[in-house]
């Protein structure tokens, strides 16, 4: 674990019309670590990810990347910082084939011409590492893929690049047994190579198997961010479903949107609202 976190977000508020989905959320992500983001359905996990990756503008909050304040206005900004995301709603172009989707926005070229052979080779290699055995052709449109195959393409797309932070929103939800194992192994390998990884999952076994830290969202508030070794399975489930567990989590039921977590040093600074 290194001293400066790779990404630090503070005081994030986000509303959709009358509904406030995130309130004063803070999150710290360290390089070389897998941070698991857990929370109930509708807690705001995907929304938080989309705020970080520049898809949704935030109502308030600040982003520090490598200790520097940054502004992420759209997905291009995020990509420029080296942030790669696998979204829960996969966001593949159904009218393009597997290779085209995997290299979308960052096509390999020779001159101005697309370098299809290179892309096809790279795609094949990456997919081979993800145990997907039933894809008939890499030139198949993604609309004809099974749920798990689509998921795999989205994951493969994100790990193709030399990024610094990889965020995976429920990447194994549609995957089979072998494929899930491969992805978890991949996640671990990425972190071991020095990348920061954020993993969203509802599967506690997976979370405890690969993560270094666990951050728990409850009804749009960050109720805890602790080391995986410092917390038990049961405690996490309690945090997810009730918002607190023992000393962790919300102080009172209708408290000010505090970040009652144990492992976050910059806690006091994130109280300010803009």
């Amino acid at each position: 674990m290194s001293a400066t976190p790779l990404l630090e977000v503070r005081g994030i508020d986000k509303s959709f019309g009358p509904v406030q989905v995130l309130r004063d959320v803070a999150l710290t992500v360290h390089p070389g670590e897998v941070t698991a983001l857990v929370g109930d359905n509708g807690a705001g996990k995907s929304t938080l990810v989309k705020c970080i990756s520049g898809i949704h503008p935030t109502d308030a909050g600040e982003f520090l990347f490598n200790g520097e304040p940054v502004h992420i206005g759209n997905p291009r900004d995020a990509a420029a910082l080296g942030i790669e995301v696998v979204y829960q709603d996969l966001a593949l172009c159904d009218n393009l084939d597997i290779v085209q989707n995997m290299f979308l926005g960052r096509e390999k070229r020779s001159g101005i011409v697309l370098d299809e052979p290179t892309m096809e080779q790279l795609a094949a290699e990456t997919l081979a590492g993800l145990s997907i055995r039933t894809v008939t052709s890499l030139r198949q449109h993604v609309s004809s893929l099974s749920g798990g195959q689509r998921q795999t393409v989205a994951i493969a797309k994100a790990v193709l690049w030399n990024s610094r932070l990889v965020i995976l929103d429920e990447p194994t939800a549609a995957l089979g047994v072998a494929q899930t194992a491969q992805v978890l192994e991949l996640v671990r390998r990425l972190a071991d190579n020095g990348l920061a990884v954020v993993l969203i999952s509802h599967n506690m076994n997976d979370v405890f198997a690969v993560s270094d830290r666990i951050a728990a969202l409850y009804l749009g508030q960050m109720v805890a961010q602790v080391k995986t070794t410092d917390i038990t399975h049961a405690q996490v489930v309690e945090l997810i479903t009730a918002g607190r567990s023992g000393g962790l989590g919300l102080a009172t039921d209708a408290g000010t949107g505090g970040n009652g977590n144990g492992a976050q040093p910059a806690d006091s600074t994130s109280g300010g609202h803009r």
Partner: protein
Amino acid sequence: MTTTAVRKGGPAAVTPPPTVGGHVRNYWSRVRGGDVGALPAVLGLIVLCTVFAVMRPSSFLSAGNFANLFTQGAAVTLIAMGLVFVLLLGEIDLSAGFASGVCAAVLANVVTVLGYPWWVAVLAAVATGLVIGTGLGLLVAKIGIPSFVVTLAGFLAFQGIVLLLVKEGTNISIRDNVLLAIANRNLTPTLGWALAALAVVGYAAVQLLRHRTRLARGLITDPIAVVALRIGGLAVILGTAVYVLNLERSRNVLFSSLKGVPIVVPVIAVLLIIWTFVLQRTSYGRHIYAVGGNREAARRAGINVDRIRISVFVICSSMAAVGGIVAASRANSVDPNTGGSNVLLYAVGAAVIGGTSLFGGKGRVLDAVLGGAVVAVIENGMGLMGYSAGVKYVVTGLVLLLAASVDAVSRRRAAATGTR
């Protein structure tokens, strides 16, 4: 039925079609599975031509009529080629017709009224198209007005601008020989053969190079025989066309000789090749498909969606300018109707008949050419039938429907098998 294991091995495991027979079988099952490509439009075209050939054998099948076909359909086809880009994003440009009118009016004013040389006029017309497209694109992408409304406003405004440019109702003649040649003159027979040969050689080079690269990389590729077959096919088609167009078609050879490939043909061919290259082989083209298929996914992939949206309107209006130049050349003049009446509907219709979707993400520039051919054949054939105006409209509608249902029925299996 014994089933052999079709799928095994790594993710790139595919049934390689190593033989010609295998390739044909593969193509056929792809067609049966709904991946039909240009087939339906070509079928529709064949049915149409057969109908007209049976009804008006001598005039429809003459070399002269074949040559007419190209010049008659050229302007609509060129506008349709530009529209394909806009349609690929799921947008629409209702103003393309009158935009071509505005550009033609600029051309006529510069060359006839102001007396500049032809190339200045052409540049001015295309520049006008660029400006128009940029304006439309900015309004759509940056202010966020639906393209239907923006271009409806453009449809009205450009109509007015044409009127103002041609001084409220008068025609402006075009007397410049170079401009007139575009839609009215032919290549010399030798030049026609030379260009055809060049096209075939170029195609062969590209195909063979590609074949070699893929083989060298160990990727799946079509058997060399199939590649050869394709090249041969192109050679036969081009050869026949050039041969027919190089036949003498003057009514009276004593007066004058009339033969050769109309100049618009290489113009359209070159633009077809350029735009197909842009769409299929550059990342810009890839991004157009992506934005049209799933705008949000494209945005998340870091594509500058606004820039793509603006650019397609620029391309569309510029192609409309080219179409306008050809139309002006063909009519020898520009009048307030240039680009008006049915030009727009025919152009969009051409793209859609060719197979381009109005919902974005699906289409090729070739579609515009094939669909433009359908529209041109219908107009051409109907012109030979000698119906009164009312009957002519009705029959034209029915013939269009005929061509489209051949298309729809041959696409049928696509829906049936769920591959869309």
